[in-house]
């Protein structure tokens, strides 16, 4: 279990993590979501003592990371794939880290096999692709057979097979009663992998709830309306608390009106409808809705719908 209390980190005048409290429970996968610059990586660095908190504490099974008797055995960390000396081979990298805890060559070979690195284990890490680097990072994290896993963007750079492998592994490790805490920017990936989601924005926790609840937050009231008379119908629907957006010449996305009411209005105004679909929110929508005001680095507005919405099954 990971427990943070009032965790704060300032870099000069900038507050990266702003007094956050959270718990990551064993036996399930906890996802850590947030826009770039929200403070996810900083939080993970604070957990393992690479950065020193400005104030607040974070404990692992009741102890500070620095006080653990066998850090590699208690916590496995993938902070970024490039935390490796590029001049050393993957095997020697793992061997050197294993030596600190008296972990033998047998286990080094095991994690190499487990992460599918056999063919490149004797090659120097400098020539590795991002995906290979991630696999080596996972091998490093698993080296000490840890009870807690902290994985920062573990699927970043992996091929689809690798993504499935990480997902399966994360679920498997959690099912063994381990604590799995992982961040990802792939919301769909998170929806499939995580049980609990913590959403971070501008250094503060915006949401901390089971994944189902988070998705429910976004199960808004958007309705997709397809009609050849889009422009006219959009003006007919106009009301103070209703927004309409014509996304294609014959397509309107309506917010604030239930589908039934839109159908009635169409009938009343003799507007032909080709489609009338209530849209369910996805984790992605929920995430975007939650972090709307907390995005540190906005991309230039390309005047496009932000995410394609999925029809209700």
């Amino acid at each position, binding site marked *: 279990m990971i427990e943070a209390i009032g965790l704060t980190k300032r870099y000069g005048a900038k507050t990266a993590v702003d007094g956050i409290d959270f718990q990551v429970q064993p036996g399930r996968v906890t996802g850590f979501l947030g826009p770039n610059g929200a403070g996810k990586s900083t939080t993970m*660095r604070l957990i*393992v*003592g*690479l950065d*020193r908190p400005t104030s607040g504490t974070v404990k692992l099974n009741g102890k500070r990371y620095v006080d*653990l*008797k*066998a*850090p*590699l*055995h208690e*916590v496995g*960390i993938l*902070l*970024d794939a*490039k*935390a*490796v*000396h590029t*001049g*050393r*081979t993957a095997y*020697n*990298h793992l*061997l*050197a*880290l294993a*030596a*600190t*805890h*008296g*972990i033998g060559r*047998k*286990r080094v070979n*095991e*994690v190499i096999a*487990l*992460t*599918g*690195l*056999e*063919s*490149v284990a004797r*090659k120097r890490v400098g*020539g590795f*692709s991002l*995906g*290979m680097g991630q696999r080596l990072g996972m091998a*490093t994290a*698993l080296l*000490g*057979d840890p009870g807690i896993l902290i994985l920062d963007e573990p699927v970043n750079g992996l*091929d689809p*097979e*690798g993504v499935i*492998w990480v997902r*399966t*592994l994360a679920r*498997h490790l959690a099912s*063994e009663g381990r604590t799995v805490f992982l961040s990802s920017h792939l919301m769909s990936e998170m929806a499939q992998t995580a049980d609990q989601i913590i959403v971070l924005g501008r250094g503060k926790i915006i949401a901390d709830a089971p994944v189902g609840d988070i998705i429910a937050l976004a199960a808004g009231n958007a309705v997709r309306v397809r009609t050849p008379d889009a422009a006219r119908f959009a003006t007919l629907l106009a009301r103070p608390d209703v927004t309409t957006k014509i996304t294609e010449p014959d397509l309107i996305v309506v917010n604030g009106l239930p589908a039934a009411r839109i159908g009635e209005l169409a009938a009343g105004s003799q507007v032909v409808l080709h489609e009338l679909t209530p849209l369910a929110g996805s984790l992605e929508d929920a995430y975007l809705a939650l972090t709307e005001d907390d995005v540190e680095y906005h991309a230039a507005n390309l005047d496009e719908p932000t995410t394609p919405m999925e029809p209700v099954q």
Partner: protein
Amino acid sequence: MTTTTPPATVTPPSPVTTPTHPIRLTFRGVLKSEFIKLWTLRSTFWCCVIVIVLSVGIGLLLATVQAPARAGVPVNPSPTTAAQQATAVRDATVGTGIGQLVLSVLGVLVISGEYSTGMIRSTFAAEPKRLPTLFAKAIVLGITTFVVGLVTVFGTAAIIFPLLPGIHVHPNWGDSKLELALFGAAGYLAVISLIAFSIGALIRTTAGGIAAAIGLILVAPTILDIVAATTGATWAQNLVAFAPTNAGGKLYAYVSSAPSTTSGVVSLDAHTGGLVLLAWFVVLFVAAAVLLKRRDA
């Protein structure tokens, strides 16, 4: 270089193994880890080879050009025993000048290489108290450079001493002062590399660390020397005497007079010079240790 992606293991076997002994972080383990780290990088091997080859080569060159047959210079036909031994030590340790530069680069790289590649995060995740890592690195580096120094100096001596009788120098291996001076040269190289290591730990970048280390070892004494020579200022002459290279150089000088102060200018001997060199290391190492503990990795 291209790497092929191996097939992913989709069904993970349980990663649980039952260790035969408890998995625990120990200082012994950290030492072993640092030893593996040092010797699994090519730069270490090449730095050591370069030191040995260059030093022996320069010693050999010096011994050869001194030979009267080659140089055609008049040679004192009956130098005193002490002068003979001093010449022998000087020729055997002449390579330390270049050796110290290469070993300084190695000393900086041992720590800066971890910062520049991000390895330091893996290192400190495995050993979060940090100071054991710093100590282990220093021990492994110190032993390595001392051994390289011994091989270099004694190797050079073994190769060139048979040539020295040609210039009426008859090195006497039985002279403990000669052996001490040769050991002193190896010790000097080890401490210089540790000073560079401490600078690397303070500055954390390879380029900055090497520049600062070379600056302290080579550039600063030279500039001070020029200032001292042109102004004749006592303070400048004393600073020159206390520079790591000059103070440490007394460790491998065969003839060293007792420490003295002549009209305000200090002169060090092997003991005091060695202590001054050690003081440089201790001050820089303590500063590195304090900052290592306090700074974010």
